[in-house]
């Protein structure tokens, strides 16, 4: 019973809040009204039963609360759109078919005039319905700092008049890229260990795919996140990171892989070939056994040309090493200027180890250790270094 109520709340929060913001033109007022409506629902529904159309019920209740508040408070009225549309506004919205304005909301939250930190926090708060405390804990920030970040962002939206709308066509590609970047950032924060955020990002990704069904990159991102998330069980063994090559294939979530591939097919059918689609295609190949390394290397090459990213080149080097041997991989690695990136040195260490150049491998792993921040990553490097010392030096590759 409690879970169903939570599920309904989870599904409805973003939609109800988005429509309220669209209606009231004010984030704070909308948030307060939505919160009130959800509290009332939590009291009444367990006794009276969940209404047939929970969203409409919540919307009507929240709207009435907000309208009553505005009527009582003249100065508040002066600050909201309701002043311009006094009586009629109440009747214009048919609560049974209230508009889905979640897209308007996410584009507002991810507007480039807000800092990325603020974009992330605002998206999680408004669309995801996470509390300020939950967001603060997920990003290891004190709660007052996160609260301040949200207040500032909402204040700027209002003061600078950041529009509540889906951007026009000529702005859409850039703005959509910003939205997708925020969702992927949330996912990666979760992928690093905080599982709730990964689930949150997947939920946002699914919502976006539903709201923008014709955008290939939206499906590409969803596919990528699903295919990476399917690996979550295999990535850790007893709390320790497991390298891709050593991951137990039977631990992959096959249902999630199937969903991811379905999303990828949709993206490809739409003619998608953007960075998320290509990364999803690579993730899909990684889920096969044995892996098609030449194809993976080719796709990394494509992604590298497209993004010009040295980090992508590093991944390509790993794939090339599988196809043409460690020396070919090492040649790519040594061309990259990523000296402060611990993965570069970890990759060099692994390739040098395979080439039997143990001393240099050891040196590379040690360099990686000085640069790593994550504890699980550090322990993995320490294990690799220890294995290197345990093994006799080989002189043949």
């Amino acid at each position, binding site marked *: 019973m409690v879970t169903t109520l939570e599920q309904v709340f989870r599904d409805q929060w973003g939609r109800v809040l988005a429509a309220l913001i669209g209606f009231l033109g004010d984030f704070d007022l909308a948030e307060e009204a939505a919160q009130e409506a959800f509290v009332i629902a939590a009291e009444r529904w367990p006794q009276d039963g969940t209404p047939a159309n929970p969203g409409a019920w919540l919307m009507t209740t929240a709207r009435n609360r907000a309208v009553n508040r505005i009527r009582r408070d003249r100065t508040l009225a002066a600050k909201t759109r309701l002043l311009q549309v006094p009586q009629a506004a109440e009747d214009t919205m048919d609560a049974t078919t209230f508009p889905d304005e979640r897209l308007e909301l996410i584009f507002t939250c991810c507007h480039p005039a807000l800092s990325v930190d603020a974009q992330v926090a605002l998206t999680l708060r408004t669309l995801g319905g996470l509390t300020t405390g939950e967001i603060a804990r997920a990003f290891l920030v004190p709660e007052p700092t996160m609260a301040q970040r949200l207040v500032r962002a909402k204040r700027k939206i209002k003061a600078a*008049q*950041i*529009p509540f709308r889906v951007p026009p066509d000529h702005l859409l590609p850039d703005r959509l890229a910003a939205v997708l970047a925020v969702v992927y950032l949330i996912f990666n924060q979760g992928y690093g260990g905080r599982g709730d955020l990964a689930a949150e990002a997947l939920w946002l990704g699914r919502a976006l795919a539903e709201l923008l069904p014709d955008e290939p990159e939206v499906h590409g991102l969803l596919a990528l996140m699903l295919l990476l998330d399917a690996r979550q069980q295999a990535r850790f063994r007893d709390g320790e990171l497991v390298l891709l090559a050593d991951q137990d294939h039977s631990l992959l979530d096959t249902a999630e892989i199937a969903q991811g591939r379905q999303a990828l097919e949709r993206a490809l059918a739409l003619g998608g070939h953007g960075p998320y689609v290509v990364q999803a295609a690579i993730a899909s190949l990684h889920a096969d056994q044995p892996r098609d390394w030449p194809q993976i290397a080719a796709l990394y090459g494509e992604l590298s040309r497209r993004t010009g990213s040295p980090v992508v080149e590093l991944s390509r080097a790993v794939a090339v090493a599988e196809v043409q041997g460690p020396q070919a991989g090492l040649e790519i690695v040594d061309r990259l200027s990523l000296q402060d990136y611990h993965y570069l040195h970890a990759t060099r260490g692994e390739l040098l180890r395979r080439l039997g150049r143990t001393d240099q491998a050891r040196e590379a792993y040690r360099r990686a250790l000085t640069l790593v921040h994550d504890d699980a990553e550090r322990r993995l490097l320490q294990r690799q270094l220890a294995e290197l010392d345990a093994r006799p030096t080989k002189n043949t590759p």
Partner: protein
Amino acid sequence: MQYVLLIYHGTSLTTPLPEDEQKRIYAEWAEVNKTPGLTGGVPMGLPENATTVRVQDGKTLTTDGPFVELKEAVGGYAVLEADNLDAAIELASRIPAARLGGAIEIRPSETYW
């Protein structure tokens, strides 16, 4: 909604440009000035000739030069009446200084009294 656009030239005003490039910049400005809702500011001279005034303990102190560093000084301003921030961003991106190493700062106007 009213926005104040602060124009920062960076080093672009003091860097000599070929004549055709200079003409292009004037042409771009002419286009920008046609934008409905835009009211251009009074043209400002170089920050080198600025005088900065402070009052401390009732005493007026003047110093040579702008309040901030020379290359950080405001180079001009304009006022735009627009529907929302996106419209202001679109106009700002067409002001030549934005692509010449300078920048445009968009500030919403505010009523304080």
